[in-house]
């Protein structure tokens, strides 16, 4: 049996916010949740998606950090910024291809998901995957995913021409080799100027 790994399947997310709450209870960043729960299209759909750090093999966040504040553990976990070093420049926030790190102005520091390192290094599941009722966030083995899900888990992404491999997997239909967030789609998905819901809300 292979080792435990982290799997995301945002298409299973039901938007219950359990992960957001559980993340807040972590001792290393008590009261602040590191999970982004995105509402994909607020006006037209209830679709939501959780985003945790993908723990890239060669993390862009660490490469663009001028303070050399982002380090990887031997297990390949990209840690939150080292507090004595982070100078709060937000480079990592803007450059991370998955939009993960957050800058907190009050304390002038970046903080991000660290794979619940205190828990996972002790053999426990991350907080979010423990509480997720639909298992959109799951911490299990590749075999288990293969046995129970329809799709397959991959960890290869392409952004522009940048290929990114991650420690965290995403569940996609069988046969998919990599995920390419499609830049063509970008131009088309701006908000409709005649979006009635938005007009009613005065947005």
């Amino acid at each position: 049996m292979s080792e435990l790994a982290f799997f995301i399947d945002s298409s299973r997310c039901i938007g219950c916010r359990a992960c957001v709450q559980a993340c807040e209870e972590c001792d290393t960043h008590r009261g602040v949740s590191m999970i982004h729960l995105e509402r994909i299209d607020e006006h037209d759909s209830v679709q939501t998606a959780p985003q945790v750090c993908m723990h890239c093999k060669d993390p862009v966040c660490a490469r663009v950090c001028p303070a050399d504040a982002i380090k990887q553990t031997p297990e390949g976990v990209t840690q939150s910024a080292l507090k004595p070093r982070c100078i709060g420049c937000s480079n990592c926030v803007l450059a991370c291809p998955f939009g993960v790190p957050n800058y907190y102005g009050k304390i002038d520091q970046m903080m991000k998901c660290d794979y619940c390192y205190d828990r996972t290094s002790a053999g426990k599941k991350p907080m979010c995957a423990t509480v997720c009722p639909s298992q959109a966030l799951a911490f299990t083995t590749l075999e288990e995913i293969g046995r129970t899900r329809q799709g397959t888990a991959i960890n290869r992404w392409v952004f522009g021409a940048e290929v990114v491999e991650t420690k965290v997997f995403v569940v996609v239909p069988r046969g998919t080799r990599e995920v390419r967030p499609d830049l063509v789609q970008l131009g088309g998905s701006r908000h409709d100027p005649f979006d009635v819901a938005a007009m009613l809300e005065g947005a």
Partner: protein
Amino acid sequence: MANAIQKGVVRATLWGLAFAALVVAGVLVGSRGLKDFDTALVPYAGATVFASFGLAYRYAMWLQRPPTRLYWFRGWQIFLKPSRLPANIVLLVRQLFSSVGAQSFIARRGAARWAAHWFISWGSLLAAAITFPLSFGWIRFETLRTSQEQYQAFVFGLPVFRFPLGSVLAVLAFNALDISAIMVLIGLGFAMWRRARDRGALAVQQLSGDLMPLFLLFAISVTGLLLTVSTHVARGFHYNFLSQFHAVTVIFTLLYLPFGKFFHIFQRPAQLSIEFYRRASAAGPQATCLRCAKPFAGRLHIDDLKQVEAALAIKFAAPPATTGIQGTHYQDVCPPCRRKLLAITQDGLWRGHGRPRPEGP
């Protein structure tokens, strides 16, 4: 690649040597050709010269990273812009008071953390401000030839001021190192208290990275205080042993300075320059997101970031063949849209395989 790394090491070594030479020259000149130099302090001065080499070496290596380099120069460029300079200096002074003086950004992360850091840092800075000039022979104290009751302070060999033996100033001057040691010990008390109780700290702290510096400071402070006790209370009890032990702790810390956690003392002031950068970036034109068309960062910041990414061979610029749009760059998508895009893409893959949209028909 290997060649570039070698070149970088050579360059950093040269910077290290130059800086160490500068410190040696400072000692020679400041102590008037070693006339004022106390030979008992040679090991301290030697370790300081080595530490200056290490610090300059590491700083130079750090500056070679493309992002560090760019923001370092950009920071100075923004700060020194003639039209902004007076206002920038005012802001700098204000920042020095709040970030270095009061360290309020740490207070916002917790009272115990702040107390620990404030006492340790100011205790250590005070000690450094006394010890370095003393061990370099830049400052010395002598009683006047005419009166044993009067002290004369010399700076760079020049008599600067004098004070009577029993005055407050004398008490402060001769006990300043003890005061700094007590400040450090108070800070260490807070630090250990926090590190022993805070579950977050317990989960992530490391012996070598986080606790070792505390042990070093503890050893220096305690042996330093014991020297005073030995002199004034215990009639020189084990004075030689204590002073050697104290020297070893200080020298070890000096040698450790460039490599461990203490390096942040030299690196972290970069935070001050980020404030100027942030203001300049916010005052200039804003970059809007390709997807939601909302402004999300300063144009300056995004353009600089693209430059850094190019230097690091991060290829976020999409090849026109795949998008059909000329010059699309993933850096022009705001972080929330990046997250949405990932979900939309994954969802799209499933829909391509016949799964219905999540919201129904």
